[in-house]
């Protein structure tokens, strides 16, 4: 009896380690499974978050970064519109990812209006490369990388936050204030 209980306890502890080998166990997607404790009535409503990604896209991570940078902070409708009329190869793939994420948000993550989302985080990462040989003259060769990238996006419910505009004057004021705050410690 005791042995079985111990075994049951051990398996429960072990299950919180990454034991699954499936593709679903990747870090970014696991964020979707996070469950918060129920909110108290006086707390402000926590906005819904959706994490989505696509792996092993046949595109360069540096080129994908430019598109990811463009849509950071945009509302989802604006982002989809911009990507629709962009001529880059990654734009089409990114648009599909955003539409999938929007659908997921409405179906699984309790988002009421599909337009009430904005892109909180969006970035690209390096995928697993394939290596090939590129022949040069005089019997030399180089190793050519067939590049792949991943794309990650996080959508949050609500109106996109306005980016704070810091003018040069504000930065100068802060710098001068920092200089003024200097003092001698442990003085009389």
């Amino acid at each position, binding site marked *: 009896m005791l042995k079985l209980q111990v075994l049951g306890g051990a398996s429960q502890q072990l299950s919180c380690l990454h034991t699954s080998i499936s593709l679903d166990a990747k870090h970014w997607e696991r964020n979707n499974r996070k469950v918060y404790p129920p909110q108290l009535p006086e707390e402000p409503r926590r906005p819904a978050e959706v994490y989505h990604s696509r792996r092993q896209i046949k595109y360069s991570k*540096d080129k994908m970064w*430019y*598109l990811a*940078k*463009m849509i950071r902070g945009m509302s989802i409708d604006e982002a989809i*519109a*911009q990507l*629709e*009329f*962009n001529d*880059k190869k990654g734009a089409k793939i990114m648009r599909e990812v955003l539409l999938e994420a929007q659908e997921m948000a409405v179906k699984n993550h309790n988002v009421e209006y599909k337009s009430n989302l904005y892109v909180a985080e969006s970035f690209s990462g390096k995928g697993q490369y394939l290596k090939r040989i590129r022949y*040069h003259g*005089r*019997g*030399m*060769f*180089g190793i050519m990388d067939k590049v792949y990238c991943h794309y990650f996006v996080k959508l949050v419910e609500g109106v996109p936050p306005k980016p704070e505009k810091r003018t040069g004057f504000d930065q100068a004021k802060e710098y001068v204030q920092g200089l003024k705050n200097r003092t001698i410690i442990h003085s009389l």
Partner: protein
Amino acid sequence: MMNLSALVHSLRCSLLRIESRLLQISGLDSQLAPALAVNGPSLLPQIEQDPQQDEEQDPEQTPGLLDSILWMAAPKKRRTIEVNRTRRRAERKLIKVKTNIEPCPECGHLKQKHILCGFCYAKICKETGLIRQQIKEMEGGPLTAPPVETVVLYEGETPSEQDGGKRIVERPRKRPAWFRN
């Protein structure tokens, strides 16, 4: 200028080969293969060591020609990732946000202001494809098009007075709303 530089390059290479063979014979040879590229069957001489050997061992016989080679542009230091990032992420290299996107009044899909709506255009292309197929069936072969105008009529339509001498293409469906007479 290209021919001159190629000639100079071939002269340099032949000089290098002679030197390397002399070195190998004398036993003073210690060469390593370049780090990035791998050679074929034989070790080929390096071109970086060339200016030093040239100056030390072979006094310049043709100063005018060989002087210009030592000038080759090469990076002095590795560009740091900070320098690379500031160049790659400069404002002019980022993608500009388009402000000329608006919804199409006909179908509601998005379109650019100066370009036809993609959805509406595709719909029209599809219908014209079917009309062309009909015409192909009517003609039955290449180079048999009659030298008259064509008019397309849908279900329940009769040719009007203007369409007197024209060729009639019948489409067995209702007239689409966007195809006005």
